[in-house]
């Protein structure tokens, strides 16, 4: 069964590509069926794991063996990978179904479906790996699929640029990740998780000399691994690719850039919890980066006008939550939030896709409005998604997000308190931007000039059914799995797959902390209704008053401009400089060209001796003779 889960999407992708000759619909059906089968099997596997403790490690074959560097391709089923499998395969299956409707007008449907399936395969290999190198394989594999899918509409220059940007920013992260892997191999002598994790405590106090600095081995390893996670999960400094990635088709954004691939970074940190636990510095770093990202992305999301970019920044921000949960040592809570987030964020993306689809690819929320009667199912789904995202009581986000804030508080360290504070602030911002999106899109006045309102209609069944299924997930996934994943007996489920050295003490939660976030997010619904629908001029006034701050946020803190100035332009300049000045002006001029020129000059000069006139030769002989004579007279 494990093998089937892993390879079904791959077979689906290949088969789907082959049978497209019979018609697009066949490859759509094949890919969707294969992934759905994988999803069903994953759920069975997850269930078997819980009930029968049916976990295990299955070796497929030996991939690379060079001396001690031995790496297997294998399938490792443990609680963490089984829950990830469920998340990935479920969302993927729903997105496959959704894509049949969403991409119906696209001539390249089979290619799209195959990429989606291929992505699912890559994500599976990432999740079920039992060593760092296979993880890296999946890691780059999902990066590749993300590249291909962002640039799916390859005629759009912006899409191509976004695809390359995503790949290269991820590569920068992977560069750090690879160094982390090297460090692990050099010092632990293996890349297998189990062996590395057993050895980790022995190295807790090992200091190494790294580029002239005395540093703790575990700390530096974790930091490098985390750079990889930052790239993939679009954390602060390496986040710039994620908003641009919205150039891809919306199902891609839902699957890759919300529910699965971007959470791989969180997965990595949680998977490596047995190492991270031995470095407080690294954990604090993770927490701080998470906090900054959560707040930063939320602040940007509040002023964006592109419906997908708002949700993209929201994803970025929620990933920040997961990271600071991991950073305070609450790995299980991080995964719990990852789990619930996958449902409601995929729901929001797919919902926005439904809106975009109906409005003929309009993405600007300023050109929407008053759609809720026209698209009741989408509206309902989006509202549920928003409620879940903001943490409205008893929906999934409520359980997971509030748990993060509580655990951060319970941690009892300065970083923990600070994280809790940031968490609450970000929750407020989240509520604001989410409701802004809903009100601007579905309520108020209809603002689109290119389309008359009567042309708009609800999307078809292939789109609405996945939405409704995700609605179910968004409502119940928190409530149902709370006790099980993060309750008092969380270890019954997680077992050895995560390591938490310092157990959390649940007794000391003050009541105000429990009610403060739900209170804010509830109160903010009417407030934002008032701000965005009733009295829009209040906000306009604020915008006018703080024009520079508004622009700062609207331009995403000017990160793209900054990177363009300090990285891209200098790189290009240096490249041309090396080429034109280094290779052509210096090496070639002093090397071959210079030498041949000198030889030419010398031979031109010396050829003058062979003039062919006897008196020239006689003269030279005379000089030679006299020189010889002189020499003999003086030295003999």
């Amino acid at each position: 069964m494990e093998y089937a889960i892993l390879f079904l999407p791959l077979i689906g992708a290949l088969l789907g590509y082959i049978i497209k000759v019979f018609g697009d619909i066949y490859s759509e059906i094949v890919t969707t069926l294969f992934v759905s089968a994988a999803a069903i099997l994953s759920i069975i596997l997850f269930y078997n794991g819980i009930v029968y403790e049916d976990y295990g490690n299955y070796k497929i074959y030996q991939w690379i063996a060079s001396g001690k560097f031995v790496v297997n391709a294998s399938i490792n089923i443990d609680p963490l990978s089984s829950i990830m499998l469920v998340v990935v395969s479920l969302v993927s299956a729903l997105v496959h179904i959704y894509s049949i409707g969403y991409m119906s007008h696209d001539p390249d449907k089979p290619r799209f479906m195959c990429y989606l399936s291929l992505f699912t395969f890559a994500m599976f290999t990432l999740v079920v790996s039992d060593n760092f190198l296979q993880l890296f394989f999946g890691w780059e594999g999902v990066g590749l699929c993300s590249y291909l899918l962002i640039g799916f509409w390859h005629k759009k220059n912006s899409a191509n640029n976004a695809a390359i940007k995503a790949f290269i920013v991820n590569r920068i992260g992977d560069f750090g990740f690879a160094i982390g892997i090297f460090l692990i191999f050099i010092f632990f002598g293996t890349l297998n998780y189990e062996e590395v994790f057993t050895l980790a405590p022995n190295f807790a106090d090992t200091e190494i000399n790294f580029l002239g600095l005395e540093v703790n081995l575990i700390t530096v390893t974790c930091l490098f691994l985390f750079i990889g996670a930052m790239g993939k999960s679009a954390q602060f400094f390496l986040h710039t690719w994620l908003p641009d990635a919205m150039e891809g088709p919306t199902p891609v954004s839902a699957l890759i850039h919300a529910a699965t691939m971007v959470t791989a970074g969180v997965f990595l940190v949680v998977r490596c919890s047995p190492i991270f636990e031995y470095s407080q510095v690294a954990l604090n770093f993770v927490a701080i980066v998470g906090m900054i990202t959560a707040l930063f992305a939320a602040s940007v999301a509040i002023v964006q006008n592109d419906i997908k970019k708002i949700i993209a920044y929201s994803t970025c921000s929620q990933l920040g939550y997961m990271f600071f949960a991991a950073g305070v040592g609450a790995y299980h809570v991080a995964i719990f939030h990852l789990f619930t987030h996958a449902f409601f964020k995929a729901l929001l993306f797919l919902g926005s896709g439904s809106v975009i689809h109906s409005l003929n690819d309009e993405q600007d929320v300023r050109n929407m409005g008053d759609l809720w009667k026209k698209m009741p199912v989408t509206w309902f789904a989006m509202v549920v998604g928003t409620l879940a995202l903001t943490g409205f009581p008893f929906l999934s986000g409520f359980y997971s997000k509030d748990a993060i804030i509580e655990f951060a508080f319970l941690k009892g360290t300065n970083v923990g308190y600070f994280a809790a504070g940031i968490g609450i602030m970000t929750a407020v911002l989240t509520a604001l931007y989410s409701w802004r999106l809903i009100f601007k899109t579905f309520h108020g006045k209809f603002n689109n000039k290119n389309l008359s309102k009567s042309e708009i209609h609800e999307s078809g069944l292939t789109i609405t059914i996945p939405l409704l299924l995700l609605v179910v997930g968004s409502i119940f996934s928190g409530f149902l799995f709370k006790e099980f994943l993060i309750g008092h007996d969380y270890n019954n489920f997680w077992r050895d797959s995560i390591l938490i050295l310092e157990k959390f003490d649940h007794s000391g939660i003050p009541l105000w902390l429990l009610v403060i976030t739900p209170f804010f997010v509830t109160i903010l619904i009417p407030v934002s209704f008032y701000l965005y629908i009733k009295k829009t001029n209040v906000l306009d006034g604020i915008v006018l008053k703080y024009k520079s701050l508004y622009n700062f946020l609207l331009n995403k803190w000017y990160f793209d401009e900054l990177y363009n100035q300090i990285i891209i332009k200098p790189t290009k300049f240096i490249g041309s400089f090396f080429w034109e000045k280094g290779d052509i002006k210096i090496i070639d001029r002093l090397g071959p060209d210079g030498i041949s020129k000198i030889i030419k000059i010398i031979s031109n000069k010396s050829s003058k001796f062979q003039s062919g006139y006897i008196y020239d030769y006689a003269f030279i002989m005379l000089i030679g003779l006299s020189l010889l004579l002189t020499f003999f007279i003086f030295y003999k």
Partner: protein
Amino acid sequence: MNFPILSAITFIPLIGALFVFLTRSEKDEKNSGAIYISIFTSIVNFFIILFVWYSIDKTTSDFQFIEEYNWISGFIKFKFGIDGISILFILLTAFIIPICIFSCINSVKTRLKEFLIALLVLETFIIGVFCSLDLVIFYLFFEAGLIPMFLIIGIWGGPRKVYSAFKFFLFTLLGSVLMLVAIIAIYWISGTTDITEINQMGIPSEYQYLLWLAFFSSFAVKLPMWPVHTWLPDAHVEAPTAGSVVLAAILLKMGGYGFIRFSVGMFPVASEYFTPLIFSLSVIAVIYTSLIALMQKDMKKLIAYSSVAHMGYVTIGIFTFNKQGIEGSIVQMFSHGLISAALFLSVGVLYDRTHSRLIKTYGGIVNLMPKYSFLFMIFVLGTLGLPGTSGFVGEFLVLVGVFKVNYLVAILSSIGVILAAAYILWLYKRVVFGKMENIQLKRIKDVNLSEAVILGVLSAAVLFFGFYPDPLFQTVNASVDNLINNYNSDIQQNITLNK
């Protein structure tokens, strides 16, 4: 003595070339006899070599299939023999040459017969290089390889062919002359030019430094290393497609092979001494040429510069003197042989259709050439070292190996991996994606059957060795172990001597 299989695989192409020579043809006529003969010989040779690869004993590091004849008695022996390392390069050669022959049938318009002869003769010389167990024989083959290559560039090249051919010749000859002097010196020091005997006796460490430098100058040019790399872009740009393929895929590997067999094998003390030099030149090569590749306007130049960067990893890996590093660089050379060949062939496919190598000519060809774009993508991914392609295995192992030795070198050279992604994806985007703006491209055709087969075979090889590199590791395992052991014991000996 058994059947002289090594002589056979070396000289079969030469015999083929002779038969090609004997075919009748007018100057510019399509000469099907010559084509069939050369395809037949090169493919037969490939299968014989596959068999040799299969039958070679992979558990020992000894040289096998040894053949020995006296040439100039008491002075030069004609000695052939292979081990796990050389067989891989022979295999690569025998794999690439038929591909070149296939590709040139359509693209070479003039003097096809002579072109085929040049390729087959070149194959003989290259295989001879990897089979030789005698320094003089090695040198002969090593230098003789220059001649057909010089002719290929000089006769079938582009507008600046003469300049490029001479630049190529000058650079390589300069290094080789020094190597010749060193070989003569070795003869006077050890009294033999037999490689196995020299390896057993060892060369006194005081001589090693100069000899190492002399060999280095030759291999560094061949590989090429920074700053003697500038002949490569020019040679590639002007060479016909098949010429570029042989050059990138095989000729460069002679440098890497030389470093492993001679620099590390015969002069371990000097190799250790000069490691910082190699590391710094290689790191510069990786970063410097990657940056240059980013700014190229000519596709072939871009790939040429990326070759230099990839060869930088090879030298870094060899001079780590550990298992991962050396095996990594061998795999890297093998995979670069496949990938660079494929990239040049891909450029050749476009060039045959539009006669332009400039990137700006293209754009938006994906809709008209979907198969081509798909295959090209695989090679692009191989270049940037995506896991699952052979490019990843070599590069990653080299970096693991060097990380053991020197953090700084490892980190700096890892930057090359980021830059590789940048230049190659940007190239792909500008050529394949986007809107089609050049009206001349409107009628461009997708790959035909023979092109599809060639590129398909190469992409299959790239993926196969990416997912299952084990055959490569098994082949070189014993030889690399032996190399490292010898190196370590020599270094130990030298340290105790100095005390």
